[in-house]
């Protein structure tokens, strides 16, 4: 029984969760103020206060970097909610938008920077803001595509019953979007946001310390800090940067993603009983705190209000008029015309400026990089598939390994430059071979993640069958474990392969101080063209890389994926 206590009314006013919420909110406001202060400063400000390797500046740099990544994430979200929705809703637009997304996905992210930085700098001439735009845009390009794809998939797979229910209640498209489509797509979207955040780190170094031809900007941030540390051969500073990254990743995991994952659990359509509901102290805080509760009630009311304001379609529920063939034809011919025009322009510009010998050489370089990617994926698979299966069969081990792998996936290759360059120079190793592992440094973990997920999804009864019939050793791997994880493995390998192509631009040209080590390949070709500011070679290199990635995806990965899905998926 509760005794009467004098502080009861105080407890009604503010709970201890409120105190915590207050601290967090104030912290966030301070963070925003701190990071946005520098945005409007003139560019020359960057030269007056150059970057410093003093770790005391790291909290500020970390805040700026995080701000950029979150801004990129917000942009990606806006892009996802519009682009993917449009692609899913309009049959016509979808025919064009989905392939475009596919191609955008295969354009190397660092390529976007080289091409767009001049444009963004011109948006806010002489101000830091322009460089910030360029950097945020680069981060955006590393985050947006997979999110858009995931939301597009969700929109296409909304259960017919839910869709019919919302039709029969005659929800307006606006309400339908917020009450059905967004909630339904959220779980997958949030998972992809987490992957995007991890992926974004990889490009932070390149996007903050931009140097294209004569344009050189180093925005204050962890990425530039790393770049400077590499330039000055400062190993201690590299260590500080790694520690900072770890802390930042931990912070946004606890404050942002954990609560999101726990919160989004309610939007899962198929609720399996007995599955443990994800938990998050930050979400508990938000729910228990009257302060935040009040804010969220107000927000919810505002959302409901928009549903009322946006006019409901009061037309009768008749079947939509059949699409006109002539309009279809017009649309397709317009699209074809645009594509042909664009292609012609690119090809014309390229042909005019590139001798055929150079084009052939670039193709050869692309082959080299392709060879590297395939060999590395094969090697990584040999290592991580058995380990992933072993871990996945042991839930406790999986709990320990997953977060570590997640951190490793966010690890930019540049951080290992010192080791690579030292080693190659000291032992006179072949850079063509020994720089290659850097390409798969961050991406191999996708194989591990997915194999772990696959192995832990093997039903207990199936393991019992194997034990009961005493299926062991190689037979067990051949007939049970490998087939069971194959669909998951292919998903992981596709991501890893795409990421490795991207990473090639960073990994094939490693610098440490004044020492530069280069491996022949398309990545180093693009990297060199970028630092020389040779626009046509940049476009040629990036175009070739995109082409290779698209073709490999279409001819190799996608058929493999469908085959694995069809034959090996456990239902």
């Amino acid at each position, binding site marked *: 029984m*509760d005794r009467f206590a004098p502080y*009861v009314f105080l407890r009604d006013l503010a709970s201890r969760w409120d105190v915590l919420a207050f601290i967090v909110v104030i912290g966030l406001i301070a963070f925003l103020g701190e990071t946005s202060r520098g945005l409007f400063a003139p560019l020359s400000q960057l030269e007056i206060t150059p970057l410093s390797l003093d770790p005391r500046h790291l909290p500020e740099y970390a805040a700026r970097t995080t701000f950029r990544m979150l801004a990129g994430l917000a942009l990606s979200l806006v892009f996802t909610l519009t682009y993917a929705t449009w692609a899913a809703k309009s049959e016509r637009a979808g025919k064009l938008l989905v392939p475009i997304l596919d191609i955008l996905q295969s354009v190397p992210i660092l390529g976007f920077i080289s091409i767009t930085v001049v444009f963004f700098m011109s948006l806010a001439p002489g101000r830091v803001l322009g460089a910030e735009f360029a950097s945020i845009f680069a981060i955006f390009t590393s985050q947006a595509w997979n999110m858009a794809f995931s939301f597009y998939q969700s929109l296409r797979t909304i259960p017919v019953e839910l869709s019919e229910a919302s039709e029969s209640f005659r929800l307006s498209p606006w309400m339908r979007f917020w009450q059905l489509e967004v909630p339904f797509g959220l779980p997958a979207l949030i998972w992809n946001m987490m992957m995007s955040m991890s992926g974004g780190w990889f490009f932070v170094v390149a996007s903050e310390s931009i140097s294209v031809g004569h344009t050189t900007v180093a925005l204050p941030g962890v990425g530039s800090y790393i770049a400077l540390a590499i330039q000055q051969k400062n190993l201690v500073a590299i260590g500080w940067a790694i520690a900072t990254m770890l802390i930042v990743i931990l912070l946004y995991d606890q404050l942002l993603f954990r609560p999101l994952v726990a919160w989004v659990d309610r939007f899962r359509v198929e609720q399996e009983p007995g599955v443990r509901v994800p938990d998050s102290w930050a979400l508990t805080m938000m729910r228990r705190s009257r302060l935040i509760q009040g804010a969220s009630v107000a927000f919810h009311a505002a959302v409901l209000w928009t549903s009322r304001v946006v006019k409901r379609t009061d037309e009768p529920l008749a079947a939509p008029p059949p699409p006109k063939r002539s309009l279809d034809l017009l649309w397709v011919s317009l699209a074809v015309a645009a594509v042909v025009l664009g292609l012609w322009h690119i090809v014309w510009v390229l042909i005019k400026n590139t001798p055929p010998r150079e084009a052939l050489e670039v193709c050869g370089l692309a082959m080299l990089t392709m060879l590297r990617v395939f060999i590395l994926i094969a090697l990584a698979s040999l290592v991580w598939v058995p380990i992933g299966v072993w871990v996945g069969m042991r839930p406790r081990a999986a709990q320990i390994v997953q977060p570590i792998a997640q951190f490793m996936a966010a690890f930019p290759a540049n951080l290992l430059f010192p080791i690579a360059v030292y080693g190659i120079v000291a032992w006179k190793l072949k850079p063509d071979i020994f720089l290659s592992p850097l390409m798969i440094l961050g991406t191999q973990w996708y194989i591990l993640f997915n194999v772990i997920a696959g192995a832990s999804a093997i*039903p207990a009864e*199936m393991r019992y069958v194997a*034990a009961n*019939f005493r299926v062991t050793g190689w037979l067990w791997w051949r*007939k049970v474990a490998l*087939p069971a994880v194959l669909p998951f493995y292919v998903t992981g390998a596709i991501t890893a392969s795409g990421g490795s192509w991207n990473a090639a631009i960073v990994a094939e040209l490693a610098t440490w101080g004044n020492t530069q080590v280069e491996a022949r390949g398309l990545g180093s070709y693009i990297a060199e063209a970028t630092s020389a500011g040779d626009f046509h070679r940049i476009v040629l290199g990036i175009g070739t890389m995109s082409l290779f990635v698209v073709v490999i995806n279409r001819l190799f990965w996608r058929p493999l994926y469908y085959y694995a899905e069809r034959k090996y998926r456990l239902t």
Partner: protein
Amino acid sequence: MNDSPLLQCNDVRKSFPKPDGAELLVLEGMNLELREGQIVGLLGRSGSGKSTLLRLIAGLSEPTAGRLRYMGQPISGPAPGIAMVFQSFALFPWLTVFENVALGLEAQRMPRADIRKRSLAAIDLIGLDGFESAYPRELSGGMRQRVGFARALVVHPNILLMDEPFSALDVLTAETLRTDFLDLWAEGRMPIKGVILVTHNIEEAVLMCDRILVFGSNPGRILSEIKVSLPQPRNRLDPSFRELVERIYVEMTARPLGGPSARQERFPGLGIGSVYPRVSSNLLAGLMEAVAAAPFNGKADLPEIASDLQMEIDELFPVAETLQMLRFAELEGGDLKLTEDGLAFAHAEVDERKRIFTRHLLNYVPLAAHIRRVLDERASHSARKSRFIDELEDFMNEEAADQTLRAVVSWGRYAEAFAYDDENAMFSLENPT
């Protein structure tokens, strides 16, 4: 017939460690013998440990105490002469019917030609000819379970273990498969010597088994052993068959002599420490209505109402026992008899129903009364879920506490005795605005 038993279990006991260091006892005092030519049924509800025992016999886990012997040899790990058929079929989707069947022989490193011969023979025997190259996803549930049988038979096991093999199938398919199995067994065409069948379907047990071991829960143990000497093939409509089914129903609902009363036996613990199953108020109301209506008119024979409502004992018993706990019905001698209030409830309108239910809930469910009292006494009329969970965990494990509280929440919501907000994990008296 050989004199030594195929399988012997002596005083087998199995417990799992709980996070708090205590142990959760799931099986106790298991004594069991399987002789050649017998089908032994393990009959009980979920949670009575019968599947756990099956896994011990299969060598898939180890007993905490006691001895398990297969043909006189202690069982340590999966034995070559014991094969299992699974409830969910557990076929490998990437292997064809033939490859699924051949898997067990491949594990024995048998020559290719022999594997082929024996697999085809098993496929033939179980009626799967023509499906050798099909993938499981192309087959119906019944055909898939046939693959499960063929896969088990192909290794020529002495003992066949069956873990509710028919319960994932529809009624018609299950009956066909059972009959086919019994025919093959009677004709001695299967290379097996004894069968252990786990089931929660009383009629299935009587139809198939020579002996039935009735399992009780908390912890799992054998309540009684029933010999079935009806000649095969058995007829469900035969009076002696019905009589036996009835007898087992009585057995499974009887109050053990000299022990604690049945109510406490089923919901272990006393007062606030009782563990309740999650039974929705809809099911409670539905069963009361069914029993109150013709032809039962307030008193129903359990086997009859089970087949009438197409409920397995697994589903029916918790509802019936919850009615008894709420004093809406009496459970005795295989009958379910509504009390006066139970009858009144069945015939009442919504508001009156809620009044009756509230009264019984607060009178006979100490936890509900406790929650209500706490809410009434507090100035804020609200209380955290954790407070009651903590109290419950003095009596039971975490899982049982959660299940019990959820059951009481759903009854309390129906009775409008109190409100509960899951997001904040708060109980309150007010209704949501």
